[in-house]
């Protein structure tokens, strides 16, 4: 268990630290490459993604340089987009011992058996402070935008894409730009500000820049001549480390970046006209294309439609040309083609497919020969016009009721699928036979439910009638059953043990009988005395023995029998 936990921990650490192995390098940079004799500059060794970077160096930087401070070391580790990157720096303040050109050679570091090498650095030392060379990297701002053209010259009608690259040695947290609406001499196809551009690093004159393509602009040239691509303004938000003054400046708690406007450099582009000799089937397509032609059905009936589909596949100015008009035979009715676009901006221009679907309806039977489909485009690769020619299968038009050998080819895919199948096999036996001319209404088996329903209805009516009769003769029925009910009651009270319940039950039985019979207590002379006796003993039930209680019950029964006899 412990061993497996140890293995897991090791694997986790390995996975965690593996990215540190990526892009390992050591660079040497200087705060200034042109400085005066008594001026101190700082030289910095930067160890990127290298573990166990040295805290000092055991060799002299250069015999002409005197170390006036250092070494200063720092380590920085960051986690960006799931990747860990680390850098360690080792800095020295140096002063030049003599004027002139000092070339710091490439240093080699051996760190845990791996060798890393810096690039050589050239320093120019003057006697006194000198103005900086405008061509030197020292003149480059810490952040700037460079416009990159794919090429200097284009053809009229060609679609191409410009790229805006951001160079920065600072920390950029955001950038925006207003979309490009129009540009003299061009159709603006698309301006795109890239959300998460890929970046690379480059050292320009001893200064390290991060470079990222932050925007692209796709244009299609409409006029010929020389055109200026004007400077484009970008708003860049920078984050400077030394500006952290409070917790609210911390990147985890929001941003208080410094917004600056930066303009890209303008550039010029020359647009040439397309060469002559395009031919009748050229409608402005420039790029590299292939063509595919298909006919929905080559055997159809008169006045039945078939679809001719033409696909143009490739890359170029896909959204800026139409399909050349084709010559169709006169006995075919043609409708405006239905255009389907399936292309998108990719790389320098559009890439994908465009389709034109012509619906053809022949009006007369016979064989119809459709001319070859032709499409001409200007090939950018070869700088010449190319014409694609594709033949179309002849259309065989049948009369409305004609059935030909290849009739099946005129059917729809669903019909062909059905034709390809066979009928299902015979039924092997008969499950239910009926008389010829069978009428379900006359089938007695179908009437069972209705017969049941009729019986239920009759039963329902009968039941209602019976209960109604019973309601009406309730008194007579109760009188008739009075003796029976009373005797049933007396039989049940024989089981009672306690005298008070026994007395209560005798009285109840008598009263039930009198009530059912609808007669008063005075109907028999003995009843009032008997009721009084029961009432009296109810207050002292313990005075009566079981025999006396039975005698009392027998007396009540005798009275009831007498009344019945009367």
């Amino acid at each position, binding site marked *: 268990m412990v061993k497996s936990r140890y293995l897991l921990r090791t694997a986790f650490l390995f996975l965690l630290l593996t990215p540190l192995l990526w892009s390992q390098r050591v660079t040497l940079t200087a705060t200034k490459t042109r400085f005066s004799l008594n001026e101190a500059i700082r030289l910095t060794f930067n160890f990127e993604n290298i573990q166990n970077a040295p805290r000092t160096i055991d060799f002299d930087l250069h015999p002409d340089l005197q170390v006036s401070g250092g070494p200063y070391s720092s380590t920085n580790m960051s986690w960006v987009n799931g990747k860990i990157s680390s850098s360690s720096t080792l800095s020295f303040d140096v002063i030049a011992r003599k004027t002139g050109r000092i070339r710091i050679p490439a240093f080699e570091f051996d760190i845990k058996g791996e060798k890393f090498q810096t690039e050589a650095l050239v320093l120019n030392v003057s006697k006194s402070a000198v103005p900086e060379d405008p061509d030197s990297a020292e003149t480059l701002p810490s952040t700037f935008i460079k416009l990159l053209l794919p090429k200097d010259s284009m053809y009229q009608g060609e679609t191409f894409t410009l790229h805006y690259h951001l160079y920065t040695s600072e920390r950029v947290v955001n950038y925006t730009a207003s979309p490009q609406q129009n540009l003299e001499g061009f159709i603006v196809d698309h301006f795109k500000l890239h959300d998460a551009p890929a970046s690379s690093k480059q050292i320009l004159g001893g200064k390290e820049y991060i470079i990222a393509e932050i925007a692209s602009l796709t244009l299609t040239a409409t006029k010929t001549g020389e055109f200026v691509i004007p400077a484009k303004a970008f708003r860049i938000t920078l984050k400077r480390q030394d500006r952290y003054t409070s917790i609210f400046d911390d990147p985890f708690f929001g941003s208080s970046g410094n917004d600056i406007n930066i303009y890209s450099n303008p550039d010029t582009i020359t647009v040439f006209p397309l060469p002559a000799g395009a031919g009748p089937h050229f409608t402005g397509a420039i790029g590299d294309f292939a063509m595919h032609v298909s006919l929905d059905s080559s055997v159809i009936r008169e006045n039945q439609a078939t679809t001719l589909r033409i696909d143009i596949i490739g890359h170029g100015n896909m959204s800026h040309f139409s399909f050349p008009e084709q010559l169709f035979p006169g006995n075919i009715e043609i409708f405006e083609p239905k255009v389907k676009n399936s292309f998108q901006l990719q790389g320098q221009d559009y890439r994908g497919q465009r389709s034109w679907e012509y619906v053809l309806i022949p009006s007369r039977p016979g064989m119809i020969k459709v001319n070859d489909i032709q499409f001409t485009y200007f090939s950018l690769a070869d700088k010449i016009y190319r014409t694609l020619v594709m033949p179309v299968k002849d259309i065989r038009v049948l009369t409305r009721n004609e059935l030909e050998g290849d009739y099946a080819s005129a059917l729809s895919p669903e019909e062909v699928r*059905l034709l390809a199948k066979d009928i299902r096999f*015979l039924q*092997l*036996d008969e499950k239910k036979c009926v008389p010829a001319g069978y009428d379900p*209404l006359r089938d007695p088996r*179908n009437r069972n439910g209705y*017969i049941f329903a009729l019986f239920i209805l009759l039963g329902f009516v009968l039941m209602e009638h019976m209960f109604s009769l019973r309601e009406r003769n309730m008194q007579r029925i109760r009188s008739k059953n009075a003796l029976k009910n009373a005797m049933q009651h007396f039989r049940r009270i024989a089981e009672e043990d306690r005298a008070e319940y026994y007395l209560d039950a005798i009285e109840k039985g008598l009263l039930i009988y009198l009530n059912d019979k609808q007669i008063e207590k005075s109907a028999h002379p003995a009843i009032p005395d008997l009721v009084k006796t029961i009432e009296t003993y109810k207050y002292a039930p313990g005075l009566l023995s079981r025999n006396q209680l039975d005698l009392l019950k027998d007396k009540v029964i005798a009275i009831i029998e007498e009344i019945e006899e009367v």
Partner: protein
Amino acid sequence: MIRRILIIAVLPFLIFADGNKQERDALFKQAVSAYAAEDYESALNTFLSLENSGIVSWELFYNIANVYYRRGEPGPAIRYWEKAALLAPANPDIAHNLNIAREQLNDKVVLPEMFRLFRWYQELQKRIPLDRMIRLIGYLLAILLLIPALYRLRRHLRGKAKRTPAFVITLCLAILILLLSVITLDTLYERRNSRHAIILAERAEIYSEPDANSVLLFSLHEGSKVRIGREIGEEWSRISYFDDKIGWIKSEYLGKIEE
């Protein structure tokens, strides 16, 4: 009246209890064997003799249709599959074979798309097995009457009974029965009052009048289904093809579906 009741009670037993049932089964199997051996002539004769006995089944019609189809006679085949579909409207085998046969018809009409609700209703009418529906309505009616009867009985015996559940169930059943009855009666009316036939001739001319010298309106081909209207003797029938093309055809070219 008593005699009539006796006939109604005894008829189903008469149909199945006779000794001919076994003989019929044997003949049926013999015809199936002949079909399997591709002796379509013999199979057809046997199946037709069973049909002529006056007792039929959807299986018999289905098999006769299959034999005709194998013999290359799509008209009679479609006619018998249609006859089978009248007895077993929702049977998938019949529908499958009919679809295959119809795809090979010369006459095809593409009708405009119907409103979805009407289409569903028509499909429902085509697929309703009328005998089962009539039976179902009868039993539902019995249950409908039984529920209030039980409720009243309980009320008489115990003096009280819950009214709401009985009322809700009765109401739902009544609505269901009403709905089913309307659909069934409509279907029954449609089937009784519309007679259809299949064109059996390879090509049949339809005239404007019941006279071969009158104007020839259009032609139909074997397998097409038409609705029969009036008939003049046994010679001429007035037909309509998809309700919009109406004319007169010689009755000998027609194979009636409903007898």
